[in-house]
């Protein structure tokens, strides 16, 4: 199993940033999710985030909402998410689950952490779990040997950044802008400053997400961050493709462009 620690150590040794790709479980189809993620890994993604589809995704823009809605309509359940993680982890990529808190809370934190570890998952990203509410999840994750990733934002004070990074293992997720997920024309200038501020409080890798959609943007972010996170841009291409095979080819092309970007 590839861990986040080995991924970031290797990327650092290669003097480049890691490339992190996001896709929701059950998208574009229950069977097609692992194949799509595998296309990203083959094209150069080091880490894959598997989204756990949730009915009320507070942080997500229209593209991911659309994908998640399709996945839920297809009947994706947590067992399917775990199977997806298992399939993606088998490709050799470090595989995380990105999820809102309520599905974990309802499933049972200990059970979720254990099942995720057994599936080969290496951790979670929990966008609506604050440090204040995170203790049960950090304890469950530590017991299962998986990492916990939380988010810092441009609005975070120094005290908040410290509180968040103290709860993180694996890496810290820096939200590049004040807003929801979705590719943008430009990556917000706040991102670089946020990464600098975050690094002052931790030795953990800091990855930048929200708004990255092109190889050039990935290259720009890679100059100051340890990892570049891309989601909506891949999903948009799958949504626009005439069929699953064309979707895989399209995201492979974009991921290769991004993989070149993080190596510039």
């Amino acid at each position: 199993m590839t861990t986040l620690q080995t991924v970031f150590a290797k990327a650092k040794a290669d003097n480049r940033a890691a490339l992190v790709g996001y896709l929701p479980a059950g998208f574009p189809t229950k069977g097609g999710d692992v194949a799509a993620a595998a296309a990203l890994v083959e094209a150069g993604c080091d880490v894959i985030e598997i989204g756990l589809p949730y009915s009320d995704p507070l942080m997500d823009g229209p593209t991911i909402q659309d994908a998640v809605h399709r996945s839920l309509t297809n009947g994706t359940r947590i067992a399917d998410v775990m199977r997806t993680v298992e399939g993606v982890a088998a490709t050799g990529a470090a595989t995380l689950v990105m999820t809102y808190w309520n599905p974990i809370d309802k499933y049972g934190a200990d059970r979720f952490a254990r099942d995720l570890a057994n599936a080969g998952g290496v951790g979670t990203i929990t966008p609506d779990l604050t440090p204040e509410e995170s203790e049960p999840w950090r304890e469950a994750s530590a017991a299962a040997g998986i990492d916990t990733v939380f988010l810092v934002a441009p609005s975070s004070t120094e005290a908040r950044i410290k509180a968040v990074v103290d709860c993180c293992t694996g890496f810290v997720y820096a939200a590049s802008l004040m807003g929801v997920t979705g590719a943008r024309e430009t990556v917000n200038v706040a991102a670089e400053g946020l990464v600098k501020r975050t690094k002052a409080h931790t030795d953990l890798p800091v990855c930048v997400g929200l708004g990255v959609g092109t190889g050039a943007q990935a290259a720009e972010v890679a100059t100051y961050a340890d990892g570049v996170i891309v989601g909506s841009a891949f999903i948009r291409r799958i949504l626009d493709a005439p069929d699953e095979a064309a979707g895989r080819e399209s995201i492979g092309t974009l991921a290769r462009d991004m993989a070149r970007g993080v190596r510039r």
Partner: protein
Amino acid sequence: MAGNGAYANDPDVHGKFGIFGGRYVPEALIPALDEVAATYEKAKNDAEFLREFDHLLRTYAGRPTTLTDVPRFSEQAGGARIVLKREDLTHTGAHKINNVLGQALLTKRLGKKRVIAETGAGQHGVATATAAALLGLECVIYMGAVDCERQALNVARMKLLGATVVPVKNGSQTLKDAINEAFRDWVTNVDTTHYLFGTVAGPHPFPEIVRDFARIIGVEARRQMLELTGRLPDAVCAAVGGGSNAIGIFHAFIGDQGVQLHGYEAAGHGLESGEHALTLTAGSVGVLHGSRTYVLQDDEGQTIESHSISAGLDYPGVGPEHAWLKDSGRATYHGVTDDQAMAAFSLLARTEGIIPAIESSHALAGALELGRELGPEATILVNLSGRGDKDMGTAMKYFNL
């Protein structure tokens, strides 16, 4: 605020009422929530703010609202005396005006010029658009596309008041999806915008702030009941969707152990039908819209869509203070079906010449049943949270008028 001044049952520093409440939101919103909490903390202890709020309540909202005895309606309640707290007589026709005036003043203190809000029945949207017009704030209202259709009159009112109404076409296209969309706007525009939250749900400090701005209802009603009857009521009844009108009237009575508190949720087509909004009655503890509370959800934590003939009660969550009142046993929550609510709606209109909101009709239906249980000596105070003009389209269809 104005009234008895005691802040009993305040949440702890993390915004928790027991195990309920708290904050489950993206980190980007935490500083904004901290700012709102700090600004409110100062405002609620500032005589100038309280004076300004009180002035608006009296000269603009039309407070104090009166109590009305409804003897002909009460005949159907086994002779128990039912008294209505007339929030329908406020400006814009519902209790929502109290909270929006308070939060609009707070918006100015925050130095922000734009407010966003979510709305189900449209009453909170209308109230927000009204307060925004009064105080010169830009106003955007998120409303489920389904609700836009069934509350077309309120959509027109909001537009006339200068607000932009955004129909939300995600998910169930009702209140919960409007809240999600409003949060997305807020996280994007938090520097310039205050999210004028409409009920006692959501992340801390909203449940506390909305409660405090709505509690004038109970403060007035408690005093007025003592003047009218010489004693406190045996029971207080209110409808519960998110729970703002119910907390508003309950709060002044929480310390009066002899006063029963009864909340009435929308049972829609009945519990067995699966088409209801019985969050406290049939939901389970979870997290929705930034708060730990009772939620209608499946075994994997996915929100289940709710149903009610009343758009204002069609919400799969509920305020955390209600969750705490339920678990502590201080308040009791019941279900009232669409048919029961519409029967009470019609009965009040025909016996007393008052057309209530369909939301409030759930509390009226509950009071009829409670009156028969408590007997003819009992006095029951019902929060008539709003007037029914907005619901005439629904009533016309239901009664084939």
